[in-house]
């Protein structure tokens, strides 16, 4: 059975350390941006940066980058559901009288 499996990918130490450094950098960026007067962008910016960080963790630490398309596909289904649900809830919340 195992012979049929492709050899599992090994993510090297340097890659992981580089990702960690990037994560720390992005954290520093997020903190720095908070409180700056960028208007409504300042509400969305931390969320966007958090999403970049999340994707670094998912892609490299959780190996999604190295997995078969199936895993990426099901993650897409989940994210798609989130987008649709959020959009529909906001059709309510944004237009209340």
């Amino acid at each position, binding site marked *: 059975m195992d012979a049929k499996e492709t050899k599992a990918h090994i993510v090297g130490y340097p890659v992981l350390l580089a990702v960690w450094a990037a994560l720390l950098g992005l954290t520093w960026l997020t903190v720095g941006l908070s409180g700056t007067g960028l208007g409504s962008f300042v509400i969305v910016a931390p969320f966007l940066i958090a999403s970049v960080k999340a994707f670094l963790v998912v892609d490299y630490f959780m190996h999604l980058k190295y997995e078969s398309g199936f895993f990426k596909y099901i993650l897409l289904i*989940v994210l798609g559901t989130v987008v649709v*649900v959020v959009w*529909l809830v906001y059709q309510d919340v944004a237009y*209340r009288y």
Partner: protein
Amino acid sequence: MARAGITEGSYLSAEPGRGWLSSWLLTTDHKRIGILYLFSILSFFSVGVVFGFLMRLELIARGPTIMEAATYNSFFTLHGVIMLFLFLIPVVPAVFGNFLLPIMIGARDVAFPRLNLLSWYFYMAGAALAITTLIIGPADTGWTFYAPYSLRTGTSASLAVFAVFVLGISSILTGINFVTTVHRLRAPGMTWFRLPLFVWATYATAWIQIIATPILGVNLLLVIAERLFGIGVFDPAKGGDPILYQHLFWIYSHPAVYIMVLPAMGAVSEIVPVFARRVIFGYKAIAYSSIGIAALGSLVWGHHMFVSGYSYTAAVYFSLFTFFVAIPSAIKVYNWVGSLYKGSIVMDTPFYYALAFIFLFSIGGLSGLILGALSVNVHLHDTYFVVAHFHYIKFGGAAFGFFAALHYWFPKISGRMYNRRVANWALLFLFSGFNTLFFPMFVLGFEGMPRRYFDYLPQYADLQHLSIVGSWILVAALFTMIGNLVVAAYRGKIAPANPWGARTLEWQIPSPPPKENFEQIPEVTRGPYDFREGV
């Protein structure tokens, strides 16, 4: 004894070196787990029926008859919680999905057999908690637990809500198991488009279980946090918004109704081609429609909230999507009926039950479209019309589908055949009793009788009485139907491996199936509804 004879070598036979009790309570055999679910679910179903019966009895006369108003509130709460969370949501996936899914795809078991057993224990734990609330003071909020009342009621709402949370875990584990199983354990040659439609239905259902259930889960935790700590998100007194509770609730609970009905539709999709002796009409359309129902069904939850006070913009979108979601269901109905065209129809018990499903589900579905129209909904929301609608869909639909599945797969599961005449008569009375009980509710609702009311105005009395008589016929018929099957399980005539002449893999192995399902994993070369001779 005779029973040992036919079960020898099967999944029901004794396991050497293991006591009888532990061979069941510690089993990892998907077939035994299906049986564990069957017995526990039917037990709780009976409790739910009793609640429904007593509710009807209370309404035989105006004013308090056999209970006070507060008790009535608890009864309809428990009736809903039991029927939905303890019966309809688990029943077809956990009983028939568990029993049949691996066999239908040519596997020996599910992907995670021990997780499968764990899901049953979570089910039993949740059920125990729910029954406990019965004893210590049941919730009176309705099964929907709407804020802000659910935040304030002095009854055991926290425990009830936690029970549902635990049941949700069971559902999630089943969903994870089934998705993984279908992706990883199909036999050689079992391509996606050779899968039985029951597998497609169960697969789509499993995705809903995975994605939607946790949202209800966190909503329930939020209610508990509100009740225990007053976190304020749903509490208007603290600036919170009770409509947000409804959003989070129905984001799960609408897809949940598809968890209940999709597998039942899958069972009907199995039965129809076998009894029409021809390939099902529009296999791909039915397969895709299962996915379509799961997807579109996630967009319509706001149709439970049209009069809640949320935005008109949202209401329009939800109404629009509600009309769309009828399309894949309608495709199924057309295709089932289309499968009868040019078929050589065999009139037998499972087919009768399947026909009853199609008829009752269609009525229920159409009444849903009526409710989906915004202006009409204002008049009909929270009336008996809604009660009739969802009983036609859930009882006439999902539950009748479950009964059809029971009568179809009974010989496979037990190795015995039931008395078909009794089963057919039971169906006739089931059908008559059901319609007598619920059809008047459409009229009552239109005439303005509100739901969940323990009393009513004199003008509603006649139809209430008609409905109550229907409930007696229905309960008697249910008793007969189930009794017939129970007797058959012990004393029925030995059934052949394939009494219906079906082509799917479960019918190509002995009845009851052997422990490992297949001596050798089959190599699949044809579709599941290929009734051509000599091929």
